[in-house]
């Protein structure tokens, strides 16, 4: 066991950091983009009704395609990994932002209008907070999937926990595979918990549900 850490310890630490960096930056960028697009789409129902199914279909494109294509055009640079993962991470968040905003009951919006709130105020003080749970569910899903697909950054030589998985698979050494898999799983669980925490902090107290 100690031999394992002596040989691979530093490498594993570096891989975890690289993997975390790609995941966090991609999801952060994706969230920003998806929120904006989601809000815009919720304001354009006819366009949305056409676009949303298309987006659902695009969600089935596996991350490897983005990574592969961008690798061919951009090369082996971190930008490739970041862009590919970010594009892929947008879809779940976008879908959920749109669904969440649309799910806000009209009565709340009417009440806000009755209070004299302008459209922007309604968006930020009524709609978004009410859509929070759904949006966060989307961010959570996106994060878990991104940690999964970030395993492929090793395929294009950009490091990350995938390096252990690949090495393990190509040398038929399951210890290495597990050494890559376990931290990745823990990372996904950990990031998920952080997102849950963020959700609790950002949701106004009045809207917080008592979770059983």
């Amino acid at each position, binding site marked *: 066991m100690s031999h394992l850490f002596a*040989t*691979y310890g530093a490498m594993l630490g570096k891989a975890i950091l690289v993997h975390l960096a790609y995941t966090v930056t991609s999801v952060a960028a994706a969230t920003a983009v998806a929120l904006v697009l989601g809000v815009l789409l919720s304001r354009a129902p006819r366009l949305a009704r056409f676009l949303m199914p298309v987006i659902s279909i695009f969600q089935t494109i596996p991350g490897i395609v983005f990574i592969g294509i961008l*690798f*061919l055009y951009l*090369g*082996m*640079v971190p930008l490739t990994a970041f862009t590919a993962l970010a594009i892929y991470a947008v879809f779940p968040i976008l879908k959920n932002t749109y669904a969440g905003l649309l799910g806000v009951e009209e009565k709340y919006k009417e009440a806000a209008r009755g209070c004299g709130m302008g459209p922007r105020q309604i968006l930020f003080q009524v709609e978004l907070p009410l859509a929070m749970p759904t949006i966060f569910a989307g961010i959570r899903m996106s994060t878990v999937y991104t940690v999964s697909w970030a395993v492929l950054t*090793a*395929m*294009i*030589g950009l*490091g990350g926990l995938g*390096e252990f998985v*690949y*090495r393990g*698979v*190509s*040398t*038929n*050494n399951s210890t290495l595979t597990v050494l890559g898999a376990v931290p990745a799983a823990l990372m996904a669980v950990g990031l998920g918990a952080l997102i849950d925490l963020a959700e609790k902090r950002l949701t106004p107290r009045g809207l917080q549900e008592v979770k059983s």
Partner: protein
Amino acid sequence: MKNRKKLLALLLAAATAMTLLAGCGGAKKKDTVVILDGEFAEPEIVAQMAKMLIEDKTDLKAEIKDAMTPIYGFNEMNEGKIDLMLSYDGSLLVTFLKHDDAEVPAGMSTYDYAQQVAAKECKVHLLEKLGANNTYSIAVRRETAEKYNLKTVSDLVPVAGELVFGAEHKFFDEEGLIRYKPLCKFYGLTFKDAKSIDLNLKYSAIANGDIDVTEVYATDGQWLANDLVLLTDDKAFFPEYNLALLVRNDLFDEVKDTAPDLESVLNELAGRFTESEMAQLSYEVDVNKREPAEVAREWLVAQGLLQA
């Protein structure tokens, strides 16, 4: 109480279903030769050739199993689950059986020594050599070779600190002898950085300038296409890797009723390849994007081993 009973019944049903799933796979009479597909063009092509020869000249069928790393193939062959795959005497001796190439007695070839060790330590052996030696080579882009005047691997030592080394994940295995760290130790190389990348993508990487030095297989068509220069292994770090089919010892016995001549059929490929010929075949697949099966068939027909 009733809930628990229901729960138990459900879990029992699940367990039964799972065992049925696992037990799916009975024994059948040996009528199919299981060939492991390759991870890159060369073994893919030879696997197809073996399949075509088997099906054309014997009553057996041949099935090509999806590619897995050769070490996996070796393990599976020893367990009797795979029958045949393309391999190399150096791989058998060094990678699979984990011996040092330096052990080969003076005057004896790597091939003969590998067979000798294999007979004692595992359940597979090599068929006759196919003719080409696909050993490792260190390669750089033409401009890099010209810039630093590189002809041998030793020439890299003074400039290694400015260059990035890249190779497939397998080459960075900490447990192997013919790998990155032993190579650097042997020659005294300290590269600026080392990146591990997918086997087939490393050529894009070196062409792009993302990596400067890589390790290639001598008969790989892709280094030709990318205008790389091979550096001479002046201190002889890399052993020989003569192509030969690796076969499970019991295979020929098991099929002797249906195909008593299987061994000679497979040995029809022996001695027919040169490095450049093999490289050309790989080139067709990797660069001209043709299917391995098509390239294999074409070659077999040209050699007169198969009817058109």
